[in-house]
């Protein structure tokens, strides 16, 4: 029974494939794999916008949206209608072709990266050997479209936003990929499916074999999620948008549905990179405990995804925006050395074949540098109450 529900979508697809003539099967197969992604993730985006606004409201002791539909959960419908009916304004000085292409170029890679994420047992659009590489390569295309949007608008604020975005995304791409490299080293494969398979099973003490429960995996996961926050331009790394400084950054000149596409692509990127974080470190679609194995695998994937999204909302409600120099200092003076040391820690773990010694060695290898680098990062700062001198 559990097996049937777990493989529900896979058997459904096979059944539908059996009904189609052989000539059409490759096309139908592709469509049947792609359409659910096109339906589910924008739907998740719609629900997330409402939940995010409600969550942030509660953090700030407000109600949040509560007027449209039951408890305000249909707010996204109103927002969608609004953005569809708004006038689409293109500045006269804008480069019209690029201005039009930028939001499309942003949404396409945002959808493409879902091709390699395993959502459940046997549920992956295409399991090819260079999955992780594909994810990072396509994900990096976001930077191009962000710069296209910022440049083609011919607006100083949008250009500033785009420059900030480029500086930030390229700086954080390095720790993002380096923290993922540890997992690739341990598993010995770039295939996302193989990475999830490698995290099957449970420790003696009941914990699952996820990489996040190893010292290098925990550090890798933390670095990965911090870099993912920066990659998807979310608070506290929302400098490219910076509402209070440069109004909306690179999408300042976009209105109507193009603006909605930017918004959509931002959240799709967030979900995709969270999905990759789950695949790499949180055991993919594996259940956290052996007795919970009966719950379908795809429910576990989405439960972990929702938990990570909640984490992002929580962080957004907590932290103020960084300054540009703080952002760069953090990327190059903390994230990058930490990611490199983490690779060494993973190597030590690998050669000591895990076990208590490996655990201890890699823990020391990551904890020591963490304390030292943290001290180095904070040493230059004078954290004291600011005093003001007034004219007398």
């Amino acid at each position: 029974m559990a097996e049937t529900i777990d493989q529900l979508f896979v058997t459904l697809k096979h059944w539908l494939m059996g009904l189609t003539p052989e000539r059409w099967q490759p096309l139908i197969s592709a469509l049947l794999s792609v359409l659910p992604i096109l339906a589910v993730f924008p739907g998740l985006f719609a629900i997330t916008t409402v939940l995010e606004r409600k969550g942030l409201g509660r953090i700030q002791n407000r109600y949040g949206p509560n007027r449209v539909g039951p408890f305000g959960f249909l707010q996204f419908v109103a927002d969608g209608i609004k953005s569809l009916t708004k006038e689409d304004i293109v500045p006269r000085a804008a480069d019209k072709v690029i201005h039009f292409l930028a939001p499309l170029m942003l949404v396409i890679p945002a959808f493409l990266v879902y091709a390699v994420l395993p959502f459940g047992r046997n549920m992956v659009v295409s399991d090819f050997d260079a999955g992780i590489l594909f994810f990072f390569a396509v994900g990096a295309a976001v930077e191009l479209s962000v710069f296209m949007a910022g440049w083609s608008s011919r607006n100083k604020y949008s250009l500033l936003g785009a420059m900030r975005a480029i500086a930030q995304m390229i700086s954080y791409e390095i720790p993002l990929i380096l923290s993922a490299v540890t997992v690739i080293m341990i598993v010995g494969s770039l295939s996302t499916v193989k990475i999830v398979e490698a995290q099957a099973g449970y420790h003696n003490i009941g914990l699952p074999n996820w990489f996040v429960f190893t010292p290098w995996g925990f550090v890798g996961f933390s670095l990965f999620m911090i870099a993912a926050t920066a990659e998807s331009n979310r608070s506290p790394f929302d400098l490219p948008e910076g509402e209070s400084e440069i109004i909306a950054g690179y999408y300042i000149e976009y209105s109507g549905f193009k603006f909605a596409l930017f918004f959509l692509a931002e959240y799709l990127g967030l979900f995709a990179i969270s999905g990759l974080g789950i695949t790499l470190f949180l055991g993919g679609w594996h259940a956290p405990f052996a007795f919970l194995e009966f719950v379908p695998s795809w429910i576990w994937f989405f439960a972990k995804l929702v938990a990570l999204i909640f984490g992002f909302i929580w962080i957004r409600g907590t932290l103020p925006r960084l300054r540009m120099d703080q952002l760069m200092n953090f990327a190059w003076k903390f994230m990058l050395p930490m990611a490199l040391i983490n690779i060494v820690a993973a190597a030590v773990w690998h050669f000591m074949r895990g076990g208590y010694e490996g655990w201890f060695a890699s823990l020391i290898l990551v904890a020591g540098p963490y304390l030292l680098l943290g001290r180095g990062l904070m040493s230059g700062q004078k954290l004291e109450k600011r005093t003001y001198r007034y004219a007398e």
Partner: protein
Amino acid sequence: MLGEGLIKGMAVTAKNFVGSYVSKDRLPTIQYPEERQVLQEAVRQFPFLVFDGNDPMAGLRCVACQICEKECPPKCIYIEKSKDKKPDHIGKPQIYPAKFDIDLSVCMSCQICVEVCPFEAIKMDTDFELSTSDRFGGLLVNKHQLAKPNEYYRKIHPTEAAEVDARLDAEKAKADAKKADAETKAKAAATQPTAATPAK
């Protein structure tokens, strides 16, 4: 240690997040159309015209003296005097406003019209739900829309209205006494010759 502040901050936000579901006191928002804040007595929005009795147009206290029109800083009041006269609350024949318009889109709620009015005819209203689909005609209100009974004034500003009523009553009593006095004098003047004639 690096990251300590992050954990502290996240604890604060988590406390607020959970707390807002547990205790109502944390949420200061008033859900406006369903819940309403109790207005303070001194609240003022836009002026209205006070009338006595049951007929708004007959009981209007305004005598179209045009002081408010002249004093109004943004010039949002427009008054046209009447040709004929009607008796006011003390029975004296007075001119009344044939036209009394206030442009609410211009009014700045300064209350100067109220302060300069010698007849206690114009007062500040507390009604703030004045949205309209016509921004020109909808916000230009005439004397029929402006006229509101004295009872309404007593309800929205009780303390102020009591003072005004006392003052008006004193004035009326004085005027009545004067009138009675004049009547008795006139009667005395009328009766004296008749009383005197038989003596002659």
